[in-house]
């Protein structure tokens, strides 16, 4: 099989940094997240510039937002960040099974979050808050939707990784992939914390 499989069993403590490829991947991903920060920063700026442009007769953010649902979504996503940490810790201890399980929990929580978000969006459209309703609605759906798309991509990505580790085991090739997916998941989480504050909390107080 692979030239690297002889490392199996005695995997180094930080298998994601054991090879130059692994180190490159981790560094490259940090940089990518830097770019993603600018991306979301720009989306936030656009939202902040446009959030008061609700238009006549359209629901305002105070009328729309139901903090209870959003709070539950927040708790779910934050918890999923924690479970992804458990997964990486398990990886560092070399406990592949535990890592797999924590990743599965993470994916399930991610799906739950997405379900809530879809439900929320459908509610909003029924209340007359559609994508093309106003500048507020367009920038809202773009910002929150971009985040949602990131979550969806993360769910698919981590699921594929679970399958991959199941087939190939934890190696110095698969470990960086899992690690990097963990970084991605944290990033999505941090972005959500800002969305929760800037979009929902600030939207509620006006």
């Amino acid at each position, binding site marked *: 099989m692979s030239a690297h499989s002889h490392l199996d069993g005695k995997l180094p403590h930080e298998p994601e940094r054991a090879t130059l490829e692994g180190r*490159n991947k981790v560094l490259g991903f940090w*940089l990518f997240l830097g770019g*993603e920060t600018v*991306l979301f920063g720009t989306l936030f700026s*656009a939202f902040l510039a446009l959030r008061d*442009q609700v238009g006549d007769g359209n629901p305002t953010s105070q009328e729309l937002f139901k903090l209870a649902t959003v709070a539950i979504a927040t708790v779910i996503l934050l918890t999923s960040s924690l479970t992804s940490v458990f997964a990486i810790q398990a990886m560092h201890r070399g406990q592949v099974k535990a890592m797999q399980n924590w990743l599965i929990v993470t994916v399930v929580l991610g799906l739950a979050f997405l379900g809530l978000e879809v439900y929320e969006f459908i509610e909003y459209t029924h209340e007359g808050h559609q994508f*093309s309703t106003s500048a507020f*609605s367009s920038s809202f759906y773009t910002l929150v939707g971009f985040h949602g798309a990131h979550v969806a991509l993360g769910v698919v990505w981590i699921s594929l990784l679970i399958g991959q580790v199941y087939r190939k085991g934890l190696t110095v090739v698969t470990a960086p992939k899992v690690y990097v997916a963990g970084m991605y998941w944290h990033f999505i989480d941090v972005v959500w914390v800002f969305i929760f504050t800037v979009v929902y909390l600030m939207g509620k107080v006006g």
Partner: protein
Amino acid sequence: MAHAHPVKRHTGLMDWLTTVDHKKIGILYLIAGGFFFLIGGLEALLIRVQLWKPLNNFVGADTYNELLTMHGTTMIFLAAMPVIFALMNAIVPLQIGARDVAFPFVNSLGFWTFFFGGLLLNISWLAGTVPDAGWTSYVPLASPTYNVDKGVDFYVLGLQIAGIGTLIGGINFLVTIINMRAPGMSFMRMPMFTWTAFITSALILFAFPALTVGLVALMFDRLFEANFFEVAGGGNTVLWEHIFWIFGHPEVYILILPAFGVISEVISTFSRKRLFGYSSMVFATVLIGFLGFMVWAHHMFTVGLGPVANALFSIATMLIAVPTGIKIFNWIFTMWGGSIRFTSANLFAVGFVPTFVMGGVTGVMLAAAPADFQYHDSYFVVAHFHYVIVGGLVLGLFAGLHYWWPKMFGRALNEFIGKLTFWTFFIGFHLTFFVQHFLGLMGMPRRIWTYLDGLGFNTMNLISTIGAFLMGLGTIFFIINIIVTAAKPKNAGNDPWEDGRTLEWSIPSPAPEYNFAQTPLVRGYDALWKEKMDGNEGMSPAEPIGPIHMPSPSILPFLMSVGLFIAGFGFLYAKNDWNNAFVSNIFGNHIVAGLGLAITLGCMVVRSLKDDHGFHIEPEEITGKGVKA
């Protein structure tokens, strides 16, 4: 652990479509960038023909707007950027003593997405609906209300796809430079060109995502009835200007910094002197990169942001002239007292210095906000940015191409034709753009398709057109030079200029697939020059000869980019009036777009699931002998 994995090594066209070798990708960038340069140049000549006399009727107003828009967009995104990437790919890994870039696969993906994005943009000519809202695509001119055909959609989607390529290319170079340097190659020993490639990549990383968002917003406005910039729906047109220039100003430094790097290398080599003030050069480069993010509103002085904002952006802009000035003086002091050889590469480099200074001076003039109310949107601005972009970047690229051609292709360009290229291009350039300063000061607005007689504009416009044709002639000389050179034997030595200072000149021309048979040990700045001065034959190796691991070629980057291309097409024609029910169905329901995205995502999954073990080049093949070293 040198057991070889069987790997397909392609030849011919398949080799070029699947290559992950940074040197070949560099050549691909050069060919594609050169191709778009010719298209953009043709557009420029048509523009100049239209303007050569008052009330000319060579092309109509609509066509003029299309030519102008496509000229600017093509030159910046599809010509200048890729040729910069060509040089970075061809040279940076060699200069840091690396066998490869950090992400060979991603590198190839970057090229193909750029290429297909550019193709999509230019297909608008064939589709008969061409972007016509300027390279800056300001709203409301570019909004669906005032721009009803598909031109701007081509702009939005083409640039989006090309932009992805640029962004991942930037990340690749950052990681390559941080992680892949040879032993001893500390940051403060890196050649200037590598330094500028590093900072430019950082600027790409932090600037392009802003453009991505801007393009997404404009696309949503145009295709999905969003209201980002639709004033009737509460949108804000100034928001587009902010987003565009937060990207746009760093972009101009993304363009010029690599040229600074080239000029530093060329001037130092052909003055046979160490670059004067190396550390201040590094510092100035970093500072320019940093300040480049704080000045975007100097493009918006006349929007009405208020005196405080204008004053702050004015001062920040003028500050950039300080590190830029440091560089100019360093180049002059490098030449000072050196034994200068005026090769064609060095002619371009020396010609760059005063030309770029002129562009910098008009830049500082423009940075004075009250004065800019006079200059803004006049030919004065056109003169300014052509002095910095053509007189700066393009001369820098020519210098770099003449300098590194033997390293890229194993044959040196013909010096006589090279000098002919320089003089025609250089004189043509100044003829074209010098007079435009005065046209601007006399009040000729930019972006107009014709002008009246009797305004005093006639002579200078005629001169400008003549100059443009001279630049065209210079370009033809360059192409002739390429053809003539290609017909000659491949006989360039390791160090064809004999005064090479940096690592790329320590290995054969063109570099072998694995670059360095043995990773070199770097003992100082100007690594090769140091060994020469110490009387050594080339670099001392940092490792014994052994099998070299190489990444395997892959067709996936090509397919992924084709997928994006199809998706772009699908979105573009989703709302088209097809007279065929089936076609209208698959486009209207986003089936075509979805299919394209599915191809791309599917390839990503394949890439993730299939391990790439690469292959090994054995020592026998490296030393060319059957014996083990």
